[in-house]
Each structure stands twice: as C-alpha cells, then as structure tokens.
C-alpha cells in the first residue's frame, strides 16, 4: 500500500487533524521568516557544478590569460591549462571536499559558464575564505563585483562568519585592484609563496569583516 503523507493526514480523526494543521501552519510561518540565500544576481547566478559542465569549464580554463590565476585545487598547476580529463577530476575534487563549496558562475539567460568561485571554512566557520575566476572575455563587465556581493550576502547572511579572507598573487595587479575595490583590506603576505619567471613572488592576503561589509552595503543602499 502506498499513500502520501497528505492523504494519511486527511484520514486522521478531526481532533488530530486540527493538531496537524496547527503544526503545519507554524512550520509555514517559520519557513517564511527564513531569508533564503540569494544566489541570483541581475546578470549572473551561482550553482553547484554538474558533470555536464566539464566541457564548458575546460574551455574557460584553456584561456592563456588565466595562466597563474586558475585557483585550482592543490597539485593542479595554475600555469598549465588542464586536460578535459583533469578538468573532470578537478570538478570531482571540488565536489568531494568538506567544508567547501565550488560554484559555477553562469548567465541565466544563455546558460553560459562565465566563471567559477569557491569558498571554504576548514574547521572554523568564523573565518571562511573565497576565491573567484571570471572568464577573460567577461572581464571588466561587473561580473566579479556581482559575484562578490552574492558570496558576501551568502556568507554573512546564512553563516556565522565574522571575517572573509582571500589571497591574490603579488604580480596580479588587476586582481589586487579588484579585491580592494570591492572592500577587502590588505593584511599582509605569504612571502615566497610561488615561483615564476625565475623569481619567487609573494601571495598577498586580504580580509573583509562582517561590520565592514554591512557598512558598505548600507552606504550603497543610501546612495541608491
């Protein structure tokens, strides 16, 4: 015999039906009070990766303008574009990691992949980190700024994060300009963190406090 919960409840005696209806009404009210994470912006949206994204992700990763900026999992060289096979392995690695979320950045209208982003918090949700890669053909179109807003709203709105951090290689002037423009504060560097062009380079560290983000949001809404 199969029966849905609804039909089971419909068959309850009247006094129990009243109790069930009251519980359901309370749950609906509670659910209405919860602010759902807003991962849809005006131009882009974020969602988990699917295996059907592999070809599009592979295409994004082939662009030489992303050399050194791919933010791939440990042991995947950021200077070498991955093969299609490695791209699938990267996507699977992202999906398997704990306390970590990698999301596809796509245009809802076309469904096109225009970048990817990740966040993680290790053992401590007080201080998560984020990273972001936008496909070069979409640079300077405001996509990065919109994704950061979605990420911050998600982390500060649905988790207990107090500070969000990110890193940018010291040679990546565009990246440094971007993270500071969206509100991140410079906090130091990992010295000699990477090596290219026959030289070591530092990785710069940045963070953004909850109160700083909220103040930025307030200023933006005041100015709007």
């Amino acid at each position, binding site marked *: 015999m199969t029966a849905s919960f609804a039909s089971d409840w419909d068959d309850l005696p009247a006094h129990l039906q009243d109790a069930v209806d009251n519980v359901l009404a309370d749950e609906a009210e509670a659910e209405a009070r919860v602010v759902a994470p807003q991962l849809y912006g005006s131009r882009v949206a974020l969602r988990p990766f699917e295996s059907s994204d592999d070809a599009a992700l592979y295409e994004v990763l082939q662009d030489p303008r992303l*050399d050194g900026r791919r933010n791939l999992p440990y042991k995947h060289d950021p200077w070498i574009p991955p093969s299609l096979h490695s791209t699938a392995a990267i996507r699977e690695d992202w999906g398997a990691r704990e306390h970590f979320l990698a999301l596809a950045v796509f245009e809802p209208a076309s469904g096109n992949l225009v970048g990817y982003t990740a966040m993680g918090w290790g053992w401590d949700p007080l201080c998560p980190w984020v990273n972001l890669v936008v496909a070069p053909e979409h640079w300077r179109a405001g996509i990065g700024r919109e994704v950061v807003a979605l990420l911050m709203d998600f982390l500060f709105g649905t988790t207990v994060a107090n500070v969000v951090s990110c890193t940018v290689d010291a040679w990546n002037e565009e990246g440094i300009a971007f993270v500071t423009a969206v509100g991140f504060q410079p906090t*130091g560097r990992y010295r000699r*963190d990477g090596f290219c*062009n026959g030289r070591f380079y530092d990785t710069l560290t940045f963070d953004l406090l909850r109160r700083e983000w909220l103040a930025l949001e307030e200023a933006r809404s005041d100015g709007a």
Partner: protein
Amino acid sequence: MGLEGATIWLREQRAEDMPLLQSLRNDMRTQGYNKALPPDYTEPMLRGRFEERRFSLDRDDAVFIIERKADGRALGFIAYGNLEPRHNTMVGMGMDQEVWGSGAAREALDLLLGFLFLELGLRVVHMWTISENVRAVKLAEKLGFVISSRKRESCYKGGKLGDTLLMDVLREEYLDPRGLTDTLPKLEDAPGSMRNPPL
C-alpha cells in the same frame, strides 16, 4: 637518532610518549585556541593516531619529540606539515609548561629550522599562531620569523576575538645571522621565464 642539539634531541615518537602528548592536547594554555578542543583526549585516542602512521618515503610531514639529553625526559613535541619539497612548510610545537622559559623550545625550533633549510633545502618556513600567544610570537621573532600576515578577528579564545598571525622566515634570514653560506642557486636571480606572468 633524530636531530641532535646542545641540550636536546628531536627524536621519533614512541608509545611511552602518549601520556605527555595527551596532557599537551588537554592543556588549554597550549592547545586551547584551535580545533583541538574540547580538551578531553584520551591516551588510547593518541595511541591510535600514533599506531596509524605508516612507512613512506614520500613524506610531507613529521612529528618529533623534544627530549632533554641530560635525563632523557620528553619535554614536548615539534612538527611540520604540508611540506612542498624544496620550497616551504608549516611548523608547530607544544611544550610542557614546566619547562617554559628554559630555552628548550628555542633550541628545538632552531634545530628544526636547521633541518628544514640545510637538509630539506626549503626557501621559506611558515607558522601560524594567534595574537594572544605573545610568548610564541617572541620566540619565533628571536629565530628570525616576522609577522607576515594578520587575519583580523578570526580566532576566539577566552571570550575574546583575536587575530590569527602568519609568521615566516626566509632561507637567508635563517642562514645569514648564523654565518652560513648558501650553496643552493639564488633562484631570485635565475634566468629563464614562464609564459605570461607580468613580474
């Protein structure tokens, strides 16, 4: 046997070290600021972790017991992990509070740095601590570490928000004060280039 200093050894862990490691794990003064909480570790838990270690020639971590040469007493541990060969690693340590201020921690860290720079050929060594742990910061600074990054309000201990500090010491910052000559190529000046990096 391990790494020998003037007054201490850094040697491998042994089964008889588990009570010391358990007590350090459960000491809020030494481990209370990190994910090691709560301080309820049992000796079998530590023994299980110890016994799970397997032989490998592809190692990216180590745990040494700090042993006093004079009487063979185990004083604490010192470790490194996330090793990138010939490049960098992260170190950490824990000492029995009875020997704080004795110089053993400094000698142990100095000894480990010597191993990392002169045997493993690393270019930089990192360590994490918190702003409240002034003793750790001062100890590291005496050995050449500097605070290179400060993650603001990212740790919580004793009811207070604090900063997480990244400290690091570069290869020449270890070698030069000790009058040691570096025979590895100075990679900062090496010829050759990769694609695209706008350095």
